[in-house]
């Protein structure tokens, strides 16, 4: 029987539309309430049902992502995913985007992005131990002027991440950076935080969660006081940045990393983590009961956090607005409820324990206020003094809006709408000679010095990456970061990856490759991949081509994760990354966490000893489409299709899986001395990077290789170095697993990268100093 159609009044329609609610959603609201909503109630629905908070356009697709493995303690749906390492240890991790705030105010936007993801990890009761940042900007095009808009953004974002991360004492151990004009109006700032959970008392390894339960229990708001910051940030994140950023100004949130640091320590004390400290701080509260649940305040502030906690616990919450400590007065109920003031958390604690919990926060100089109680009626009830301001069924808020009907359509030419270069005619310049690598030295040096490939030192030097004394392999030193876990033999291995150019050419491949590439980074170090967190950055989902690309990318992510047997445990979706001028290409970003059971068995990236043999393992053939090489020398890496070969090579997932297993076996058996996956820049760049990292030269026989072989970026390949004694074992292992490989040359004592001609034995070489200089200078001028 069709449900009776509720009809919102003209007044409700007008007010709701102003808040971004659709007529269908407004009808549903009236149906849920059985009456017209009040102003505050409309605001609650607008926030809870925004794309950012409800995932209304993406939920359906996200279910395709595999999320199970015996190690998963917490899959998608919580503040962060949690993976178990052993009986006593687990890691929590998640990616968060802060694209729109960073576009408006790069420094504070990026800084509060770090604050937000750290609180997500804290929400699981985990101590944050590492950060990674994934950044996308327009082409820097540095000329005489150092104050280009792109460089201002880049500098602001990096300074913001440094400001916040350094101050809270969480090392930023890795990240990635791409430049492409498609991101000129919509930079992407995705950040990943990892936290460590120890087993504790009765709770064991069970992570905390965003839950409220037990009628009569207390809702405690802790941290900073509430001001008029970022009202409507969540709906803002769900809108295009329309030309004039002026209008968005009141939304800017300013972070206070000092308070964030205090909040971390106080919250962990409240989670009983302090008890596991070797020597507890004096004055620490004793006999603390267990917390029931906790939740960070992010997008939507209290208006979304509380219904979420109540929904999880199957209860209701009654909130007393006048109990909330305010920074600015007066504030309307609407402003208090929707405020996105940073550095706040909500705790649900047992009745009678509120003073003991509050004392912890007071000791750290933070606010702690009892703002409400758990009630049996499954409603979100908001009162100010004795006035009832809102009463909304929790299910209605947290259950999300009726699914929107976004259409989905494949474009005529894949990528045409997404990459402007594809639509334009081929350049008039003569057809490039794909066969002969003309002057490899000049090309290699130019690639190493390209902003897309060169050293990221000017960035990571601004990040404290050694605090907490766990960083064994830091930024710039390997394919993935390696952290030791104190008092264990373990290494935690972390990476974040995603190439939007591949996403533009083929969104399915963009997704699949991002998973494979991240896994390769972990496996290169010798680690076992354990779990994925993803950041899905797309344009407007109401655009059928964008929506199609989104669906494709998810399928690619899901298929690859299935094939490699790595679960997704958390993630983030950011839509509306587009301006009137352009859309970003589909940019799925994958963060991955892996484990080295014995940190001493980690495999370095650099060549180690003269005489070692250099092998290329993996797929032997592929094209040059989508490469940095095409972009740099032909200005259209996204698009150029020589001889109609495919835009982008496809990754073969079964092959990839075999390759990764073989690589792990090689590492475990100690058969390889170094490993580095072949990615952006192709074979020669990879060889040069291994030479630079190890400070050793190499002599290579690459005679007669085409430019596609030297500079193509096709998938599923590694460069490894092997001691001569191990050569037979390596060959046997690869043979048994039917994996192609080739010996390219050997490591030499001289600091030279040399190519030998097979026929005339003519050496052409480059000194490592020259390579290093090119590599190091790539971004230097950007920060001067």
């Amino acid at each position, binding site marked *: 029987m069709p449900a009776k159609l509720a009809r919102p009044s003209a007044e409700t329609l007008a007010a709701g539309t102003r808040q971004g609610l659709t007529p269908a959603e407004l009808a549903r609201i009236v149906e849920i309430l059985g009456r017209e909503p009040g102003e505050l109630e409309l605001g609650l629905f607008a926030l809870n049902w925004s794309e950012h908070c409800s995932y209304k356009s993406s939920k359906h697709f996200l279910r395709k992502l595999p999320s199970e493995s015996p190690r998963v303690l917490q899959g998608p749906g919580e503040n962060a995913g949690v993976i178990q390492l052993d009986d006593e240890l687990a890691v929590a991790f998640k990616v968060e985007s802060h694209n729109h705030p960073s576009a*408006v*105010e790069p420094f*504070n936007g990026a800084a509060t992005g770090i604050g937000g993801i750290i609180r997500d990890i804290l929400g699981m009761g985990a101590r944050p131990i590492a950060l990674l940042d994934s950044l996308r900007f327009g082409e820097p095009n540095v000329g005489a002027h150092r104050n280009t808009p792109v460089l201002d953004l880049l500098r602001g974002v990096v300074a913001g991440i440094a400001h916040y991360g350094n101050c809270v004492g969480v090392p930023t151990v890795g990240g990635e950076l791409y430049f492409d004009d498609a991101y000129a109006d919509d930079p992407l700032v995705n950040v990943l935080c990892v936290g460590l959970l120890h087993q504790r008392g009765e709770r064991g390894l069970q992570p905390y969660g965003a839950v409220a339960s037990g009628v009569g229990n207390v809702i405690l708001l802790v941290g*900073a006081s509430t*001001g*008029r*910051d970022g009202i409507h940030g969540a709906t803002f994140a769900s809108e295009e940045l329309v030309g004039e*950023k002026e209008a968005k*100004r*009141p939304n*800017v*949130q*300013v*972070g*206070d990393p*000092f*308070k964030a640091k205090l909040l971390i320590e106080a919250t962990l004390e409240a989670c009983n983590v302090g008890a596991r400290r070797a020597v507890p701080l004096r004055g620490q509260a004793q006999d603390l009961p267990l917390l029931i649940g906790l939740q960070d305040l992010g997008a939507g502030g209290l208006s979304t956090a509380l219904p979420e906690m109540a929904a999880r616990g199957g209860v209701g919450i009654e909130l007393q607005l006048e109990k909330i400590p305010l*920074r*600015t007065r007066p504030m309307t109920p609407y402003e208090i409820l929707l405020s996105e*003031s*940073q550095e706040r958390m909500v705790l649900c604690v047992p009745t009678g324990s509120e003073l003991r919990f509050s004392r912890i926060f007071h000791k750290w100089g933070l606010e702690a206020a009892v703002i409400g109680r758990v009630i049996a009626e499954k409603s979100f009830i908001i009162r100010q003094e004795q006035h009832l301001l809102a009463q909304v069924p929790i299910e209605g808020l947290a259950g999300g809006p009726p699914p929107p009907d976004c259409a989905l359509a494949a474009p005529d030419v894949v990528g045409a709408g997404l990459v402007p270069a594809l639509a334009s005619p081929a350049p008039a310049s003569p057809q490039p000679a794909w066969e002969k690598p003309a002057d490899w030295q000049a090309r290699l040096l130019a690639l190493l010095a390209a902003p897309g490939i060169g050293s990221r030192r000017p960035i990571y030097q601004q990040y404290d990456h050694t605090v907490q004394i766990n960083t064994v392999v830091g930024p710039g030193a390997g394919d993935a970061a390696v952290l030791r876990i104190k008092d264990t033999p373990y290494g935690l291995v972390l990476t974040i990856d995603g190439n939007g150019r591949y996403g533009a050419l083929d969104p399915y491949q963009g997704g699949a490759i991002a998973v494979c590439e991240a896994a390769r980074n972990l496996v290169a170090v010798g680690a076992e991949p354990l779990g994925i967190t993803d950041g899905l950055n797309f344009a407007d989902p109401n655009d059928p081509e964008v929506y199609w690309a989104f669906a494709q990318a998810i399928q690619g992510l899901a298929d690859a994760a299935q094939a490699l047997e790595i679960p997704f445990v958390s993630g983030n979706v950011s839509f509306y990354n587009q301006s009137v001028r352009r859309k970003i290409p589909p940019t799925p970003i994958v963060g991955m966490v892996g484990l080295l059971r014995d940190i001493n068995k980690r495999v370095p990236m650099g060549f180690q000893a003269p005489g070692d043999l250099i092998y290329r393992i993996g797929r032997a053939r592929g094209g040059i489409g989508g490469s940095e090489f095409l972009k740099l020398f032909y200005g259209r890496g996204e698009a150029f299709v020589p001889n109609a070969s495919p835009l982008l090579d496809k990754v073969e997932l079964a092959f990839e899986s075999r390759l990764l297993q073989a690589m792990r076996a090689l590492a475990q058996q100690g058969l390889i001395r170094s490993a580095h996956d072949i990615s952006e820049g192709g074979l020669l760049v990879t060889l040069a990077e291994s030479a630079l990292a190890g400070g050793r030269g190499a002599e290579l026989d690459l005679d007669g290789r085409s430019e596609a072989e030297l500079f193509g970026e096709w998938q599923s390949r590694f460069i490894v170095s092997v001691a001569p004694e191990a050569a037979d074992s390596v060959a046997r292992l690869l043979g048994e697993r039917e994996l192609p490989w080739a010996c390219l040359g050997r490591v030499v004592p001289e600091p030279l990268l040399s190519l030998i001609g097979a026929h005339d034995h003519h050496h052409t070489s480059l000194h490592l100093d020259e390579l290093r200089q090119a590599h190091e200078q790539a971004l230097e001028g950007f920060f001067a």
Partner: protein
Amino acid sequence: MSGYLVKVLVEPRPGLLDPEGQAIERAIQELGLPEAHETSVGKLISFKLPGGSLEEVRERANWIGQKLLANPVIERFSLEVEAL
């Protein structure tokens, strides 16, 4: 010497969180002025210019203030030009 002294005062926009101002206020209060309030921290940038008309100098300084010295998203500025 003739010329001008330009002083640009850049302050956080009212209403935005000013953690530095808060921290300093607390320190001032604890150090013996418990009644101190409305503490704010601004940046005062001053520079000299050799010549031109007062009007012109003011106009260009205003432009520099907008373009470079203050970030309008989070800050506001005020300007003083003195003839030397």
